């Protein structure tokens, strides 16, 4: 019998839809291959525009006035309108500091995070490019930005930038990420100034070099510490990164490279010289990123992380090698690496062995039952913003914008299995099974009346024992939480 795509759709995507008939794995892999070959189709999927209109249409009164959503800035990047901040300024000027603080906190803490959560959710539910979308989630975690007070307003554009660049070369992805205002703010590079720069010599600023971004560029994004670079290399990278600034006085978070703030002294990094005045600053950084991405160590880092995300907590070295060889051969062409990953996934045995993180698992619960994203859960009547998926994800312990540190959320089950994390899965699935009853969905109707038949249960790749338990011992009204918390559904 031909393999169905149910297993691979859970492993490499957001799951299968129980209300639709299974397709073959061959068919799924074929269409995914096409999607990888034409990433522009995925990039063009700008559902966030419709999404934003929908969100805005739901806002009322004063809320609508100040939470007016994403707009395009002069350079085409998507940012949040300034109105909230203007309102904040007016209240402050009028002396009502308390009200000003309140409105600012609401804006900064809820809106960008809330909207970007919904966009991720909407994409996960509705895109025709599941694998690429999972890869997008992978990179959003790989390049974590999580500083609520500084970088969040430009996070939506940061996410879009990654989506646009992630199917090109590693060097263009890394360059776009590290020169984005969200990253420059998150890792403190926006005020990094060369000590021999014109701005310093003329006394325009007393600022100097900040090594935070330079270090993470080497440590997290490219080579990893095991490569053996030195503090001198970190210093050199930090110097090449000087001169980048965020200008946000018009609320649009433009990034400007200011040659006068760039370090003109020659830098030696991993044996190569980077020479030139501020005018050469951008091309020096481009060359540096190309240099770092040209190392096999960077390819191995990316390959290992991809294998860890999609295949196993302890990746098979052969799989890592397979991908890193593609990385080397195709000069960091990431779509080729994804293609290699797809080939590996296609030949893996159908074992549910990779523990799903809370976010992917939550989305798979929705997708399996064919539930639409916008009717979500109300957890807290006092806060209207909590009636949304981000409140669920926060409760589950994985709201993407709130990872504690630049290395992001864990990729392994050790980071996600504890009594309390598992307790949340039980609570959510129980809550979910009650709340989905309100849906006029065929599948829910079916579940409540009849439970699942053997054909439907077979799609979940259950062990014979658990199949037996679910069929013989679990009451129909408990079938959803039991199924979603089964070891086979917690993993993929």
């Amino acid at each position, binding site marked *: 019998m031909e393999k169905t795509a149910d297993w691979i759709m859970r492993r490499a995507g957001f799951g299968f839809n129980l209300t639709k008939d299974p397709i073959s794995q061959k068919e799924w892999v074929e269409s995914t291959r096409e999607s990888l070959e034409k990433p522009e189709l995925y990039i063009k999927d700008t559902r966030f525009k419709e999404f934003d209109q929908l969100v805005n249409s739901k806002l009322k009164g004063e809320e609508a006035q100040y939470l007016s959503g994403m707009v395009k800035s002069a350079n085409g990047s998507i940012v949040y309108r300034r109105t909230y901040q203007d309102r904040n300024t007016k209240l402050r000027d009028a002396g009502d500091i308390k009200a000003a603080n309140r409105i600012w906190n609401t804006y900064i803490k809820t809106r960008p995070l809330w909207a970007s959560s919904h966009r991720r959710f909407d994409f996960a539910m509705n895109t025709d490019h599941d694998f690429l979308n999972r890869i997008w989630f992978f990179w959003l975690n790989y390049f974590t930005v999580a500083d609520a007070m500084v970088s969040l307003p430009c996070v939506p554009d940061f996410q879009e930038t990654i989506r646009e660049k992630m199917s090109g070369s590693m060097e263009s992805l890394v360059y776009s990420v590290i020169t984005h205002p969200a990253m420059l703010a998150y*890792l*403190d590079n926006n005020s990094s100034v060369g000590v021999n720069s014109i701005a310093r010599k003329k006394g325009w600023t007393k600022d100097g070099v900040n090594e935070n971004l330079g270090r993470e560029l080497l440590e997290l994004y490219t080579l990893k510490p095991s490569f053996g670079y030195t503090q001198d290399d970190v210093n050199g990278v930090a110097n090449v990164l000087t001169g980048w600034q965020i200008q946000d006085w018009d609320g649009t978070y433009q990034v400007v490279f200011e040659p006068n703030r760039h370090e003109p002294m020659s830098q030696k990094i991993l044996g190569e010289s980077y020479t030139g005045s501020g005018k050469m600053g951008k091309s020096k950084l481009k060359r540096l990123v190309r240099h770092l991405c040209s190392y096999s160590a960077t390819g191995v880092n990316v390959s290992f992380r991809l294998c860890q995300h999609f295949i196993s907590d302890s990746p098979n070295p052969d799989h890592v090698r397979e991908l890193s060889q593609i990385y080397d051969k195709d000069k960091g062409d990431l779509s080729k690496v994804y293609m290699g990953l797809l080939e590996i996934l296609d030949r893996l045995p159908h074992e549910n062995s990779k523990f799903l993180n809370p976010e992917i698992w939550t989305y798979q619960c929705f997708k399996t039952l064919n539930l639409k994203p916008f009717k979500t859960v109300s957890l807290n009547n006092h806060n209207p913003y909590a009636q949304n998926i981000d409140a669920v994800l926060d*409760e589950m312990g994985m709201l993407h914008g709130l990872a504690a*540190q630049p290395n992001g959320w864990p990729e392994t089950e050790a980071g996600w299995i*504890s009594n309390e994390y*598992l307790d949340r899965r*039980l609570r959510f699935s*129980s809550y979910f099974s009650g709340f989905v009853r309100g849906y006029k969905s065929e599948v829910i109707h079916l579940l409540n009346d009849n439970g699942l038949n053997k054909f439907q249960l077979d799609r979940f790749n259950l062990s014979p024992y658990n199949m037996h338990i679910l069929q013989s011992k679990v009451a129909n009204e408990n079938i959803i939480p039991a199924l979603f918390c089964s*070891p086979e559904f917690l993993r993929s």
Partner: protein
Amino acid sequence: MKRRDFIKFSTTAAAAYTMGHSLSSFAGSNDIGNVVVILCRGGMDGLTAIQPKERSRLQKIRKSCYINTPLKLTADFDLHPKLRNFKSHWGSQNAAAVHATGFSYFGRSHFDGQNIMELGAYKPYTMSTGWLGRAMELKNLSSLALNLPTPIIVTSSAGNANYYPSRFATPPKAKVEAIKELWANDPVLSGFIDETTMSTMNPDPSRNVKKLAKEVARQMSLEGGPKVGFIEYSGFDTHATQGADNGHQAKHLQKVDDIIRAFSSQSKSVWKKTVIVTVTEFGRTVRQNGSQGTDHGAASAILMAGGLIKQPKVIADWPGLEDKELHEHRDLRETIDARDVYGDILHHAFDISKAQIRDVVFPGSKQKLDLGIWG
């Protein structure tokens, strides 16, 4: 102790308790002290917390981070003004500090450094359990963490529990039973989730470390209560505008002081047997950087407070702050292995022999340090 007695806590602050593993271990537990660990993620700046009296040098190389109005500690060291409660315990002989200490880790990576500070190993990712967990295991203690994940520092081969209140309602028993049955044959999942963990809690939205510390103290004061408290606080990574008397690093030190105060105010009965201690992955650069902040460095300081301490001291083999005295011309040189400091604390608080600490808790360390603060 009922699980419902535990309350709250935030994603940036977490707490763990250790309690007697069995009734038999309670019998001897009267002699056992209490250890509260404050895990300071991000790299606490030891020179800001405990500022050496090298005024002209410091004013030159960390102009905007120099503490102008410190509290007086000793002839050689001053204290950050936000550490007022630490100072008052110092006044009652119940506080001490160690300076120029660290985990002999010089790679300047948060993630490798934090892994080392929690494992107690000399190389990152080379052990599978945390040093506090191994110490507790030696005394047959188990731990309970008050956050979603289990902190690495308390993991050991014995089981660890954790607790965190949920806004989701408790599922009906039949649903839980069905799931438990499905997990029964799973090598990883079986054993997780029992009914006691499913009790309904009222969410406390304040997520305040002071309340957390008070609750830790309250629980530790109970008859047969926990012996180890664990509080996590992150944010010390002040690369830009670190501040001095006030500012970012000061704000975080204030939180450490708040934790000490909240704990001591609530823990009257056990305070005399307690030591609260800070743990951080590394210190920060001696010179300030170009953004009035400091970058990742090497050695830092350890703060200790509690009634187990009888002699206020700053223990240090001071390496100096001149260029040639710094590690790689930029970081405070480490002269005391932090493992020896925590080892001496565990030795006195839990009565674990130095040999056991050397073999089990901190393999590879010397454990020859006597802090000389125990009276």
